[in-house]
């Protein structure tokens, strides 16, 4: 895709186990809900189901849920990865991978947000676990190009 991956690095002053737990299990404690959600001011919680295939989602005041993506990798305390489509159709999901590496000052956390050219790789990871339609539409379209 014409959009190159976005890679961000941040170092936090704690061990990888804690850094990983804070990012995942405790995501609700820090995620900037008002600005980074579908429900915005009505968003009351962010949750991550901590297993491959688990959902990353937000909850509104009225109990409505909006799924941001599904986990494609769960490897504490090293790595978590998920599809990413907040407020969009699942078939247009991008991919986010977060890795945690011990460094002298604590843990270096790396977030890589990939556009659509690597969707095929993420799809292979999820395919064995469960049925997800998010890649099927795109793959069908791309496959149709091969006939041209």
């Amino acid at each position, binding site marked *: *895709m*014409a*959009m*190159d991956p*976005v890679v*961000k690095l*941040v170092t*936090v*002053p*704690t061990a990888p186990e*804690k850094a990983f737990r*804070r*990012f995942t299990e405790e995501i609700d*404690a*820090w*995620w*900037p809900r008002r*600005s*980074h959600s579908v429900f915005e001011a009505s968003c009351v919680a962010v949750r991550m189901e901590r297993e491959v295939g688990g959902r990353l989602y937000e909850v509104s005041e009225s109990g409505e849920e909006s799924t941001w993506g599904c986990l494609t990798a769960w490897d504490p305390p090293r790595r978590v990865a998920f599809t990413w*489509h907040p*407020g*969009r*159709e699942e*078939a*247009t999901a991008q991919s986010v991978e977060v890795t945690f590496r011990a460094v002298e000052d604590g843990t270096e*956390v790396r*977030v890589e*947000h990939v556009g*659509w050219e690597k969707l095929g790789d993420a799809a292979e990871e999820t395919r064995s676990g469960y049925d997800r339609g998010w890649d099927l*539409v*795109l793959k069908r*379209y*791309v496959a*149709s*190009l091969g006939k*041209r």
Partner: protein
Amino acid sequence: MTDIQVLEAVGEPTRLAILEMLKDEPRTVGVLASALPVSQPAVSQHLKVLRDAGLVRSEKDGARRIQHLDPDGFRLLREWVDSFWDQALEAYRESFRQADESDDPGGG
């Protein structure tokens, strides 16, 4: 265009497929439509959304109009994503500073 417009433009599967095809090479509406399971008018409508979002440009080539990806639109999209994660990770990092300051005897 606005950030919301760009995000909505790329958040629809047919439009995403159009962008994928234009990534390979610029094409006319007719060629795009022949490769997609939607009508040509539908493709035209999707292209309008993509042009309004700054992601696609239309250029005349004789009697034809060729659709191109517009790198400026993608640059803006990437900047938005970059800023999104800057803010999220700042909040993440800040959460450790606050924990330190609260003097939690449980190890923070």
